[in-house]
Protein backbone atom coordinates (compact mmCIF):
# COMPACT_ATOMS: atom_id res chain seq x y z
CA UNK A 1 0.00 0.00 0.00
CA UNK A 2 1.38 3.38 -0.98
CA UNK A 3 1.43 5.27 2.29
CA UNK A 4 1.79 9.04 2.51
CA UNK A 5 4.58 10.19 4.81
CA UNK A 6 4.93 13.89 5.67
CA UNK A 7 8.67 14.35 5.85
CA UNK A 8 10.77 17.32 6.87
CA UNK A 9 13.00 17.67 3.80
CA UNK A 10 14.90 20.69 5.11
CA UNK A 11 14.38 22.94 8.14
CA UNK A 12 10.95 24.55 7.90
CA UNK A 13 9.84 22.58 4.84
CA UNK A 14 7.56 19.53 5.05
CA UNK A 15 6.62 17.58 1.93
CA UNK A 16 4.47 14.54 1.15
CA UNK A 17 6.50 11.50 0.20
CA UNK A 18 5.53 7.86 -0.03
CA UNK A 19 6.53 4.43 1.14
CA UNK A 20 5.16 0.99 0.46
CA UNK A 21 3.48 -0.75 3.40
CA UNK A 22 3.13 -4.53 3.30
CA UNK A 23 -0.34 -5.06 4.77
CA UNK A 24 0.27 -8.80 5.02
CA UNK A 25 3.27 -8.32 7.33
CA UNK A 26 3.08 -8.92 11.08
CA UNK A 27 2.49 -5.27 11.86
CA UNK A 28 -0.47 -3.26 13.08
CA UNK A 29 -1.74 -0.39 10.94
CA UNK A 30 -2.58 2.66 13.03
CA UNK A 31 -4.19 5.89 11.90
CA UNK A 32 -2.60 8.71 13.95
CA UNK A 33 -5.17 10.85 15.78
CA UNK A 34 -3.27 13.11 18.21
CA UNK A 35 0.43 13.91 17.87
CA UNK A 36 2.50 15.92 20.30
CA UNK A 37 5.49 18.08 19.38
CA UNK A 38 8.71 17.46 21.33
CA UNK A 39 11.65 19.86 21.58
CA UNK A 40 13.73 17.29 19.68
CA UNK A 41 11.33 17.57 16.71
CA UNK A 42 11.45 21.32 17.02
CA UNK A 43 15.26 21.30 16.79
CA UNK A 44 15.00 19.51 13.45
CA UNK A 45 12.23 21.80 12.22
CA UNK A 46 14.19 24.91 13.15
CA UNK A 47 17.46 23.46 11.89
CA UNK A 48 19.28 23.98 15.17
CA UNK A 49 20.83 20.49 15.07
CA UNK A 50 24.38 20.45 13.65
CA UNK A 51 24.47 20.51 9.83
CA UNK A 52 25.97 17.02 9.58
CA UNK A 53 23.09 15.61 11.69
CA UNK A 54 20.52 17.31 9.49
CA UNK A 55 22.28 16.01 6.37
CA UNK A 56 22.29 12.44 7.60
CA UNK A 57 18.75 12.32 9.02
CA UNK A 58 16.59 14.38 6.66
CA UNK A 59 14.27 13.83 4.87
CA UNK A 60 12.43 12.25 7.76
CA UNK A 61 8.93 12.37 9.23
CA UNK A 62 8.96 14.02 12.66
CA UNK A 63 7.05 13.20 15.88
CA UNK A 64 7.61 10.37 18.31
CA UNK A 65 4.85 11.24 20.77
CA UNK A 66 1.45 10.16 19.57
CA UNK A 67 -1.64 8.03 19.70
CA UNK A 68 -3.94 6.62 17.07
CA UNK A 69 -6.67 4.18 16.18
CA UNK A 70 -6.04 0.71 14.88
CA UNK A 71 -7.37 0.45 11.34
CA UNK A 72 -6.08 -2.98 10.40
CA UNK A 73 -4.52 -5.93 12.15
CA UNK A 74 -4.11 -9.03 10.05
CA UNK A 75 -3.89 -11.14 13.23
CA UNK A 76 -6.95 -9.59 14.84
CA UNK A 77 -5.16 -9.07 18.14
CA UNK A 78 -6.15 -5.40 18.25
CA UNK A 79 -9.81 -4.74 17.39
CA UNK A 80 -10.31 -2.14 14.69
CA UNK A 81 -10.93 1.24 16.28
CA UNK A 82 -8.84 0.45 19.40
CA UNK A 83 -7.28 3.59 20.82
CA UNK A 84 -3.59 2.91 21.16
CA UNK A 85 -0.35 4.60 22.07
CA UNK A 86 2.61 4.00 19.78
CA UNK A 87 6.02 3.26 21.33
CA UNK A 88 8.72 4.99 19.25
CA UNK A 89 11.66 2.86 20.37
CA UNK A 90 12.21 -0.24 18.22
CA UNK A 91 14.76 -2.63 19.68
CA UNK A 92 16.41 -5.08 17.29
CA UNK A 93 18.02 -7.30 19.95
CA UNK A 94 17.74 -8.19 23.61
CA UNK A 95 20.46 -7.43 26.10
CA UNK A 96 20.86 -8.95 29.55
CA UNK A 97 22.26 -5.77 31.07
CA UNK A 98 21.00 -2.71 29.18
CA UNK A 99 17.44 -1.54 28.64
CA UNK A 100 16.11 -1.41 25.07
CA UNK A 101 16.28 2.39 24.91
CA UNK A 102 20.06 2.39 25.47
CA UNK A 103 21.02 -0.18 22.86
CA UNK A 104 22.81 1.43 19.92
CA UNK A 105 21.10 -1.04 17.59
CA UNK A 106 17.62 0.18 18.56
CA UNK A 107 15.77 2.38 16.13
CA UNK A 108 13.97 5.46 17.34
CA UNK A 109 11.33 7.06 15.15
CA UNK A 110 11.82 10.73 14.29
CA UNK A 111 15.54 10.21 14.84
CA UNK A 112 16.84 8.54 11.72
CA UNK A 113 13.55 6.73 11.05
CA UNK A 114 10.22 8.12 10.01
CA UNK A 115 8.12 9.47 12.86
CA UNK A 116 4.35 9.42 13.19
CA UNK A 117 3.44 12.21 10.71
CA UNK A 118 1.97 9.72 8.27
CA UNK A 119 -1.38 8.81 6.75
CA UNK A 120 -1.12 5.33 8.28
CA UNK A 121 1.64 4.11 10.61
CA UNK A 122 2.69 0.49 10.15
CA UNK A 123 4.09 -0.46 13.53
CA UNK A 124 5.39 -3.63 15.18
CA UNK A 125 2.68 -5.17 17.31
CA UNK A 126 4.90 -5.23 20.42
CA UNK A 127 5.12 -1.42 20.11
CA UNK A 128 1.36 -0.87 20.36
CA UNK A 129 -0.45 -0.58 23.69
CA UNK A 130 -4.17 -0.10 24.27
CA UNK A 131 -4.99 3.09 26.14
CA UNK A 132 -7.19 3.13 29.23
CA UNK A 133 -10.48 4.92 28.60
CA UNK A 134 -9.85 7.28 31.48
CA UNK A 135 -6.96 9.06 29.72
CA UNK A 136 -8.09 11.80 27.37
CA UNK A 137 -6.66 12.03 23.85
CA UNK A 138 -4.65 15.20 24.32
CA UNK A 139 -2.92 13.95 27.46
CA UNK A 140 -2.42 10.49 25.97
CA UNK A 141 -0.68 12.13 23.00
CA UNK A 142 2.38 12.90 25.14
CA UNK A 143 2.51 9.57 26.96
CA UNK A 144 6.01 9.09 25.59
CA UNK A 145 7.34 12.17 27.37
CA UNK A 146 5.72 11.11 30.63
CA UNK A 147 7.15 7.60 30.21
CA UNK A 148 10.64 9.12 30.01
CA UNK A 149 10.13 10.71 33.45
CA UNK A 150 8.60 7.47 34.75
CA UNK A 151 11.61 5.52 33.47
CA UNK A 152 14.04 7.95 35.09
CA UNK A 153 12.29 7.70 38.45
CA UNK A 154 12.52 3.89 38.25
CA UNK A 155 16.25 4.14 37.60
CA UNK A 156 16.63 6.68 40.38
CA UNK A 157 14.79 4.34 42.75
CA UNK A 158 17.24 1.54 42.09
CA UNK A 159 20.32 3.75 42.41
CA UNK A 160 19.71 6.37 45.08
CA UNK A 161 20.47 5.79 48.74
CA UNK A 162 17.58 5.31 51.12
CA UNK A 163 17.41 8.80 52.66
CA UNK A 164 14.96 10.59 50.41
CA UNK A 165 13.64 13.28 52.69
CA UNK A 166 14.14 16.08 50.17
CA UNK A 167 14.27 15.70 46.40
CA UNK A 168 14.94 18.70 44.17
CA UNK A 169 13.76 19.14 40.59
CA UNK A 170 15.53 21.76 38.46
CA UNK A 171 13.56 23.32 35.62
CA UNK A 172 10.08 24.79 35.19
CA UNK A 173 9.11 23.44 31.77
CA UNK A 174 6.98 20.49 30.74
CA UNK A 175 9.49 17.81 31.74
CA UNK A 176 10.01 19.37 35.17
CA UNK A 177 6.23 19.62 35.66
CA UNK A 178 5.78 15.96 34.77
CA UNK A 179 8.75 14.73 36.82
CA UNK A 180 7.66 16.69 39.88
CA UNK A 181 4.10 15.38 39.58
CA UNK A 182 5.23 11.76 39.25
CA UNK A 183 7.74 12.09 42.08
CA UNK A 184 5.11 13.55 44.39
CA UNK A 185 2.74 10.70 43.56
CA UNK A 186 5.28 7.88 43.65
CA UNK A 187 7.25 9.12 46.65
CA UNK A 188 4.64 10.89 48.79
CA UNK A 189 6.84 10.78 51.90
CA UNK A 190 9.52 12.93 50.25
CA UNK A 191 9.46 16.71 50.14
CA UNK A 192 9.66 17.69 46.48
CA UNK A 193 11.17 21.12 45.85
CA UNK A 194 11.24 22.76 42.43
CA UNK A 195 14.01 25.15 41.38
CA UNK A 196 13.14 27.31 38.37
CA UNK A 197 13.68 30.73 36.93
CA UNK A 198 10.19 31.78 35.78
CA UNK A 199 7.96 32.60 38.72
CA UNK A 200 4.80 32.50 36.58
CA UNK A 201 5.63 28.93 35.56
CA UNK A 202 6.58 27.87 39.07
CA UNK A 203 3.14 28.95 40.26
CA UNK A 204 1.69 26.08 38.19
CA UNK A 205 3.55 23.50 40.30
CA UNK A 206 0.82 23.47 42.93
CA UNK A 207 1.46 19.85 43.89
CA UNK A 208 5.12 20.54 44.79
CA UNK A 209 5.98 21.09 48.43
CA UNK A 210 7.97 24.23 47.65
CA UNK A 211 9.24 26.21 44.67
CA UNK A 212 12.28 28.50 44.62
CA UNK A 213 13.75 30.85 42.05
CA UNK A 214 17.29 29.65 41.26
CA UNK A 215 18.72 33.08 42.07
CA UNK A 216 16.94 33.33 45.41
CA UNK A 217 17.80 30.17 47.29
CA UNK A 218 17.25 30.38 51.04
CA UNK A 219 20.18 29.97 53.41
CA UNK A 220 20.89 26.37 54.29
CA UNK A 221 18.77 24.85 51.54
CA UNK A 222 19.59 21.18 51.18
CA UNK A 223 18.54 18.20 49.06
CA UNK A 224 19.20 14.47 49.34
CA UNK A 225 18.85 13.89 45.59
CA UNK A 226 18.03 15.89 42.47
CA UNK A 227 16.58 15.73 38.97
CA UNK A 228 17.83 18.02 36.21
CA UNK A 229 15.08 18.88 33.68
CA UNK A 230 16.67 22.01 32.19
CA UNK A 231 18.61 21.03 29.07
CA UNK A 232 20.80 23.20 26.85
CA UNK A 233 23.79 25.09 28.21
CA UNK A 234 21.84 25.98 31.35
CA UNK A 235 21.82 22.34 32.37
CA UNK A 236 25.45 22.82 33.47
CA UNK A 237 24.47 25.66 35.77
CA UNK A 238 21.61 23.57 37.16
CA UNK A 239 23.80 20.52 37.78
CA UNK A 240 26.43 22.62 39.53
CA UNK A 241 23.81 24.23 41.74
CA UNK A 242 22.56 20.74 42.61
CA UNK A 243 26.12 19.65 43.43
CA UNK A 244 26.44 22.66 45.74
CA UNK A 245 23.43 21.82 47.89
CA UNK A 246 23.18 18.05 47.67
CA UNK A 247 24.10 15.88 50.67
CA UNK A 248 26.82 13.21 50.71
CA UNK A 249 26.40 10.33 48.29
CA UNK A 250 23.36 11.96 46.75
CA UNK A 251 22.10 10.94 43.36
CA UNK A 252 21.58 13.33 40.43
CA UNK A 253 19.45 12.31 37.47
CA UNK A 254 20.18 14.30 34.33
CA UNK A 255 17.37 14.41 31.78
CA UNK A 256 17.85 17.60 29.72
CA UNK A 257 19.48 17.43 26.28
CA UNK A 258 22.33 19.78 25.43
CA UNK A 259 23.89 20.15 21.99
CA UNK A 260 27.14 21.32 23.61
CA UNK A 261 29.28 19.92 26.40
CA UNK A 262 28.65 21.54 29.78
CA UNK A 263 31.27 22.10 32.50
CA UNK A 264 30.62 20.23 35.74
CA UNK A 265 32.21 20.74 39.14
CA UNK A 266 33.77 17.28 39.28
CA UNK A 267 35.84 18.15 42.38
CA UNK A 268 32.68 18.32 44.45
CA UNK A 269 31.18 15.29 42.67
CA UNK A 270 34.18 13.37 43.96
CA UNK A 271 34.24 14.97 47.38
CA UNK A 272 30.56 14.27 48.07
CA UNK A 273 30.61 10.87 46.37
CA UNK A 274 27.76 11.93 44.12
CA UNK A 275 26.19 9.50 41.66
CA UNK A 276 25.39 11.31 38.43
CA UNK A 277 23.39 9.30 35.93
CA UNK A 278 21.77 10.07 32.63
CA UNK A 279 18.42 8.93 31.30
CA UNK A 280 17.08 9.10 27.82
CA UNK A 281 13.94 7.87 26.11
CA UNK A 282 12.03 4.88 27.43
CA UNK A 283 10.99 1.36 26.51
CA UNK A 284 7.74 -0.51 26.14
CA UNK A 285 7.91 -1.69 29.77
CA UNK A 286 7.91 1.94 30.94
CA UNK A 287 4.87 2.70 28.78
CA UNK A 288 3.06 -0.32 30.20
CA UNK A 289 3.86 0.61 33.79
CA UNK A 290 2.86 4.22 33.18
CA UNK A 291 -0.52 3.27 31.72
CA UNK A 292 -1.20 1.11 34.80
CA UNK A 293 -0.13 4.08 36.95
CA UNK A 294 -2.57 6.33 35.05
CA UNK A 295 -5.40 3.92 35.75
CA UNK A 296 -4.56 3.75 39.43
CA UNK A 297 -4.13 7.53 39.73
CA UNK A 298 -6.74 9.35 37.61
CA UNK A 299 -5.85 12.67 39.23
CA UNK A 300 -2.41 12.49 37.56
CA UNK A 301 -3.92 12.70 34.09
CA UNK A 302 -6.09 15.58 35.28
CA UNK A 303 -2.99 17.49 36.37
CA UNK A 304 -1.27 16.59 33.07
CA UNK A 305 -4.20 18.14 31.22
CA UNK A 306 -2.98 21.50 32.55
CA UNK A 307 0.10 21.41 30.32
CA UNK A 308 -1.89 20.89 27.13
CA UNK A 309 -1.17 24.14 25.32
CA UNK A 310 -2.11 24.77 21.71
CA UNK A 311 -4.25 22.14 20.01
CA UNK A 312 -3.81 22.61 16.27
CA UNK A 313 -6.25 21.06 13.82
CA UNK A 314 -4.06 19.69 11.01
CA UNK A 315 -5.61 19.19 7.59
CA UNK A 316 -2.79 20.40 5.36
CA UNK A 317 0.97 20.68 5.19
CA UNK A 318 0.69 24.38 5.99
CA UNK A 319 -1.24 23.44 9.17
CA UNK A 320 1.70 21.18 10.14
CA UNK A 321 4.15 24.05 9.73
CA UNK A 322 1.75 26.34 11.61
CA UNK A 323 1.72 23.87 14.52
CA UNK A 324 5.51 23.89 14.72
CA UNK A 325 5.60 27.67 14.47
CA UNK A 326 2.96 28.02 17.20
CA UNK A 327 5.01 25.64 19.35
CA UNK A 328 8.09 27.80 18.78
CA UNK A 329 6.33 30.89 20.11
CA UNK A 330 4.62 29.22 23.06
CA UNK A 331 5.30 30.32 26.59
CA UNK A 332 4.83 26.81 27.93
CA UNK A 333 2.78 23.66 27.59
CA UNK A 334 2.66 20.97 24.96
CA UNK A 335 1.54 21.63 21.38
CA UNK A 336 -0.78 18.91 20.15
CA UNK A 337 -1.70 18.26 16.53
CA UNK A 338 -5.19 16.89 16.03
CA UNK A 339 -4.31 14.81 12.98
CA UNK A 340 -6.94 15.14 10.27
CA UNK A 341 -4.62 15.07 7.29
Amino acid sequence: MLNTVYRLVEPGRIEAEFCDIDITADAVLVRPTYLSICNADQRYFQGTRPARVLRSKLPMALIHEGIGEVVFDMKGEFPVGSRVVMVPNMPCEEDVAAAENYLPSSRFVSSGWDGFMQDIVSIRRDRVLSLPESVNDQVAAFTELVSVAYHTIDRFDSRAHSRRNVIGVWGDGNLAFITTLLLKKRMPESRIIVFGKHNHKLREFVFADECFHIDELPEGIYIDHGFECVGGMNSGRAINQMIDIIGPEGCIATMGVSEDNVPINTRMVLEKGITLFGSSRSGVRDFRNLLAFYEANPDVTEYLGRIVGNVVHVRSISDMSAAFEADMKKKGGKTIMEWKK
Partner: protein
Amino acid sequence: MIFAAILAGGIGSRMGNVDKPKQFLYIGNKPIIVHTAEKFIINSRFDGVIVLCPAQWINYTKDLLDKYIPGNDIILIEGGSTRNNTIMNAIDYIENNYGLDEETVLVTHDAVRPFVTHRIIEENIDLASRGLACDTVIPATDTIVESNDGSFISNIPDRAKCYQGQTPQSFRAKRFKTLYDTLSEDEKSILTDAAKVFVVKGDRVELVMGETFNIKVTYPYDLQLAEILLEGEKKC
Protein backbone atom coordinates in the same frame (compact mmCIF):
# COMPACT_ATOMS: atom_id res chain seq x y z
CA MET B 1 -23.98 -1.45 4.13
CA ILE B 2 -20.96 0.23 2.62
CA PHE B 3 -19.21 -1.04 -0.50
CA ALA B 4 -16.18 0.04 -2.48
CA ALA B 5 -16.19 -0.33 -6.25
CA ILE B 6 -12.74 -0.14 -7.76
CA LEU B 7 -13.13 0.63 -11.44
CA ALA B 8 -10.45 -1.07 -13.49
CA GLY B 9 -12.26 -0.98 -16.76
CA GLY B 10 -9.69 0.73 -18.97
CA ILE B 11 -7.89 -1.18 -21.68
CA GLY B 12 -4.79 0.94 -21.20
CA SER B 13 -4.44 2.09 -24.77
CA ARG B 14 -2.84 5.41 -23.78
CA MET B 15 0.17 3.87 -22.10
CA GLY B 16 2.52 4.01 -25.08
CA ASN B 17 4.15 0.70 -25.87
CA VAL B 18 3.00 -0.99 -22.73
CA ASP B 19 0.32 -3.43 -23.78
CA LYS B 20 -1.35 -4.21 -20.46
CA PRO B 21 -4.05 -2.04 -18.90
CA LYS B 22 -2.49 0.63 -16.70
CA GLN B 23 -3.68 -0.89 -13.43
CA PHE B 24 -1.36 -3.85 -13.99
CA LEU B 25 1.82 -1.79 -14.28
CA TYR B 26 4.09 -1.78 -11.27
CA ILE B 27 4.88 1.01 -8.84
CA GLY B 28 7.70 -0.19 -6.62
CA ASN B 29 7.28 -3.93 -6.18
CA LYS B 30 3.54 -4.22 -6.67
CA PRO B 31 0.99 -3.69 -9.44
CA ILE B 32 -1.01 -0.48 -9.17
CA ILE B 33 -4.29 -2.38 -8.73
CA VAL B 34 -2.86 -4.11 -5.63
CA HIS B 35 -1.74 -0.81 -4.09
CA THR B 36 -5.19 0.64 -4.71
CA ALA B 37 -7.14 -2.38 -3.44
CA GLU B 38 -5.08 -2.41 -0.23
CA LYS B 39 -6.29 1.11 0.63
CA PHE B 40 -9.86 -0.19 0.71
CA ILE B 41 -9.16 -3.58 2.27
CA ILE B 42 -7.65 -1.99 5.36
CA ASN B 43 -10.73 0.18 5.92
CA SER B 44 -13.03 -1.89 8.10
CA ARG B 45 -16.07 0.26 7.35
CA PHE B 46 -16.45 -1.50 4.01
CA ASP B 47 -18.70 -4.55 3.99
CA GLY B 48 -17.29 -5.51 0.62
CA VAL B 49 -14.66 -4.43 -1.87
CA ILE B 50 -15.60 -5.04 -5.50
CA VAL B 51 -13.09 -4.79 -8.33
CA LEU B 52 -14.59 -4.42 -11.78
CA CYS B 53 -12.49 -5.10 -14.87
CA PRO B 54 -12.82 -6.29 -18.46
CA ALA B 55 -13.84 -9.95 -18.74
CA GLN B 56 -10.55 -11.02 -20.28
CA TRP B 57 -8.61 -9.63 -17.30
CA ILE B 58 -10.68 -11.06 -14.43
CA ASN B 59 -8.58 -14.20 -13.86
CA TYR B 60 -5.35 -12.29 -14.23
CA THR B 61 -6.53 -9.67 -11.70
CA LYS B 62 -7.67 -12.35 -9.27
CA ASP B 63 -4.30 -14.12 -9.49
CA LEU B 64 -2.45 -10.87 -8.86
CA LEU B 65 -4.59 -9.94 -5.85
CA ASP B 66 -4.26 -13.46 -4.41
CA LYS B 67 -0.52 -13.40 -4.91
CA TYR B 68 0.06 -10.08 -3.17
CA ILE B 69 -2.82 -10.17 -0.68
CA PRO B 70 -3.30 -13.83 0.25
CA GLY B 71 -6.65 -14.66 1.81
CA ASN B 72 -8.30 -11.47 0.57
CA ASP B 73 -12.07 -11.50 0.07
CA ILE B 74 -12.20 -9.04 -2.81
CA ILE B 75 -15.11 -9.60 -5.18
CA LEU B 76 -14.15 -9.59 -8.87
CA ILE B 77 -16.77 -8.94 -11.50
CA GLU B 78 -16.91 -7.76 -15.07
CA GLY B 79 -17.13 -4.06 -15.80
CA GLY B 80 -19.46 -2.48 -18.35
CA SER B 81 -18.88 -0.61 -21.58
CA THR B 82 -18.89 2.81 -19.90
CA ARG B 83 -17.93 4.05 -16.47
CA ASN B 84 -21.54 4.32 -15.34
CA ASN B 85 -22.35 0.89 -16.82
CA THR B 86 -19.55 -0.48 -14.71
CA ILE B 87 -20.96 1.20 -11.61
CA MET B 88 -24.37 -0.24 -12.44
CA ASN B 89 -22.80 -3.71 -12.63
CA ALA B 90 -21.48 -3.20 -9.10
CA ILE B 91 -24.89 -2.03 -7.89
CA ASP B 92 -26.60 -5.01 -9.55
CA TYR B 93 -24.14 -7.34 -7.88
CA ILE B 94 -24.81 -5.77 -4.48
CA GLU B 95 -28.57 -5.92 -5.04
CA ASN B 96 -28.47 -9.60 -6.05
CA ASN B 97 -26.15 -10.72 -3.29
CA TYR B 98 -26.81 -8.44 -0.33
CA GLY B 99 -29.98 -6.58 -1.20
CA LEU B 100 -30.14 -2.85 -1.82
CA ASP B 101 -31.77 -0.43 0.58
CA GLU B 102 -31.87 3.34 0.87
CA GLU B 103 -28.81 3.34 3.10
CA THR B 104 -26.48 1.27 0.92
CA VAL B 105 -23.40 3.36 0.17
CA LEU B 106 -21.09 2.94 -2.79
CA VAL B 107 -17.61 4.48 -2.86
CA THR B 108 -16.34 4.35 -6.44
CA HIS B 109 -12.66 4.77 -7.18
CA ASP B 110 -10.30 4.59 -10.14
CA ALA B 111 -8.04 1.54 -9.95
CA VAL B 112 -5.22 3.73 -11.24
CA ARG B 113 -5.29 6.20 -8.33
CA PRO B 114 -3.20 4.28 -5.79
CA PHE B 115 -2.17 7.35 -3.77
CA VAL B 116 -5.65 7.99 -2.32
CA THR B 117 -5.43 8.59 1.44
CA HIS B 118 -7.27 7.24 4.45
CA ARG B 119 -8.75 10.69 5.13
CA ILE B 120 -10.18 11.04 1.63
CA ILE B 121 -11.85 7.62 1.85
CA GLU B 122 -13.19 8.35 5.34
CA GLU B 123 -14.66 11.70 4.28
CA ASN B 124 -16.31 10.06 1.27
CA ILE B 125 -17.88 7.39 3.48
CA ASP B 126 -19.02 9.99 6.04
CA LEU B 127 -20.76 12.19 3.49
CA ALA B 128 -22.34 9.36 1.49
CA SER B 129 -23.57 7.73 4.71
CA ARG B 130 -25.36 11.00 5.52
CA GLY B 131 -27.13 10.72 2.17
CA LEU B 132 -25.01 13.22 0.28
CA ALA B 133 -23.37 12.37 -3.01
CA CYS B 134 -19.79 13.59 -3.08
CA ASP B 135 -16.94 14.08 -5.48
CA THR B 136 -13.24 14.30 -4.60
CA VAL B 137 -11.61 17.36 -6.17
CA ILE B 138 -8.63 19.69 -5.95
CA PRO B 139 -8.65 23.37 -6.89
CA ALA B 140 -7.71 23.83 -10.55
CA THR B 141 -4.20 25.13 -11.05
CA ASP B 142 -4.39 25.57 -14.82
CA THR B 143 -6.94 27.86 -16.41
CA ILE B 144 -9.69 25.77 -17.96
CA VAL B 145 -10.61 26.77 -21.51
CA GLU B 146 -13.84 25.65 -23.13
CA SER B 147 -14.20 25.25 -26.85
CA ASN B 148 -17.35 24.10 -28.58
CA ASP B 149 -15.74 23.40 -31.91
CA GLY B 150 -12.17 22.50 -30.97
CA SER B 151 -10.82 25.53 -32.86
CA PHE B 152 -11.91 28.63 -30.96
CA ILE B 153 -12.45 29.47 -27.33
CA SER B 154 -16.09 29.68 -26.45
CA ASN B 155 -15.67 30.33 -22.73
CA ILE B 156 -13.04 30.71 -20.02
CA PRO B 157 -14.58 29.93 -16.63
CA ASP B 158 -13.30 31.76 -13.56
CA ARG B 159 -10.44 29.57 -12.33
CA ALA B 160 -11.23 30.35 -8.70
CA LYS B 161 -14.47 28.43 -9.19
CA CYS B 162 -12.88 25.52 -11.07
CA TYR B 163 -11.78 22.23 -9.58
CA GLN B 164 -10.21 19.14 -11.06
CA GLY B 165 -12.18 15.99 -10.46
CA GLN B 166 -10.47 13.03 -8.83
CA THR B 167 -11.95 9.97 -7.19
CA PRO B 168 -13.49 8.54 -5.03
CA GLN B 169 -17.00 9.57 -6.00
CA SER B 170 -19.49 8.29 -3.47
CA PHE B 171 -23.24 8.15 -3.08
CA ARG B 172 -26.17 6.05 -2.04
CA ALA B 173 -26.32 3.22 -4.54
CA LYS B 174 -30.11 3.09 -4.79
CA ARG B 175 -30.35 6.80 -5.56
CA PHE B 176 -27.80 6.43 -8.35
CA LYS B 177 -29.73 3.50 -9.81
CA THR B 178 -33.00 5.43 -9.68
CA LEU B 179 -31.48 8.44 -11.44
CA TYR B 180 -29.56 6.35 -13.95
CA ASP B 181 -32.70 4.45 -14.94
CA THR B 182 -34.40 7.72 -15.85
CA LEU B 183 -31.69 8.58 -18.40
CA SER B 184 -32.30 8.08 -22.09
CA GLU B 185 -29.73 6.07 -24.04
CA ASP B 186 -28.46 9.35 -25.52
CA GLU B 187 -28.08 10.87 -22.07
CA LYS B 188 -26.31 7.75 -20.83
CA SER B 189 -23.77 8.02 -23.61
CA ILE B 190 -23.04 11.68 -22.73
CA LEU B 191 -23.14 11.42 -18.93
CA THR B 192 -20.04 9.34 -18.38
CA ASP B 193 -19.34 10.67 -14.90
CA ALA B 194 -21.28 9.48 -11.86
CA ALA B 195 -21.26 12.88 -10.15
CA LYS B 196 -22.66 14.48 -13.29
CA VAL B 197 -25.68 12.17 -13.19
CA PHE B 198 -26.55 13.61 -9.78
CA VAL B 199 -25.85 17.19 -10.85
CA VAL B 200 -27.90 16.97 -14.03
CA LYS B 201 -30.80 15.47 -12.11
CA GLY B 202 -30.69 18.28 -9.57
CA ASP B 203 -29.15 16.44 -6.60
CA ARG B 204 -26.52 18.28 -4.57
CA VAL B 205 -23.02 16.87 -4.79
CA GLU B 206 -20.63 17.89 -2.01
CA LEU B 207 -16.90 18.43 -2.57
CA VAL B 208 -14.29 16.38 -0.72
CA MET B 209 -10.85 17.94 -0.83
CA GLY B 210 -8.48 15.58 -2.62
CA GLU B 211 -4.69 15.71 -2.82
CA THR B 212 -2.46 16.89 -5.63
CA PHE B 213 -0.65 13.57 -5.38
CA ASN B 214 -3.85 11.54 -5.77
CA ILE B 215 -2.88 11.24 -9.42
CA LYS B 216 -4.45 9.04 -12.04
CA VAL B 217 -1.73 7.00 -13.71
CA THR B 218 -2.58 7.71 -17.32
CA TYR B 219 0.59 8.54 -19.19
CA PRO B 220 4.11 7.05 -19.04
CA TYR B 221 5.12 10.32 -17.35
CA ASP B 222 2.71 9.58 -14.46
CA LEU B 223 4.31 6.21 -13.89
CA GLN B 224 7.76 7.79 -13.76
CA LEU B 225 6.43 10.39 -11.34
CA ALA B 226 4.91 7.67 -9.15
CA GLU B 227 8.24 5.84 -9.02
CA ILE B 228 10.03 9.06 -8.04
CA LEU B 229 7.47 9.71 -5.30
CA LEU B 230 8.37 6.31 -3.82
CA GLU B 231 12.09 6.95 -3.75
CA GLY B 232 12.15 8.16 -0.18
CA GLU B 233 11.13 4.72 1.05
CA LYS B 234 14.30 3.87 2.90
CA LYS B 235 13.29 5.37 6.26
CA CYS B 236 9.90 3.69 6.66
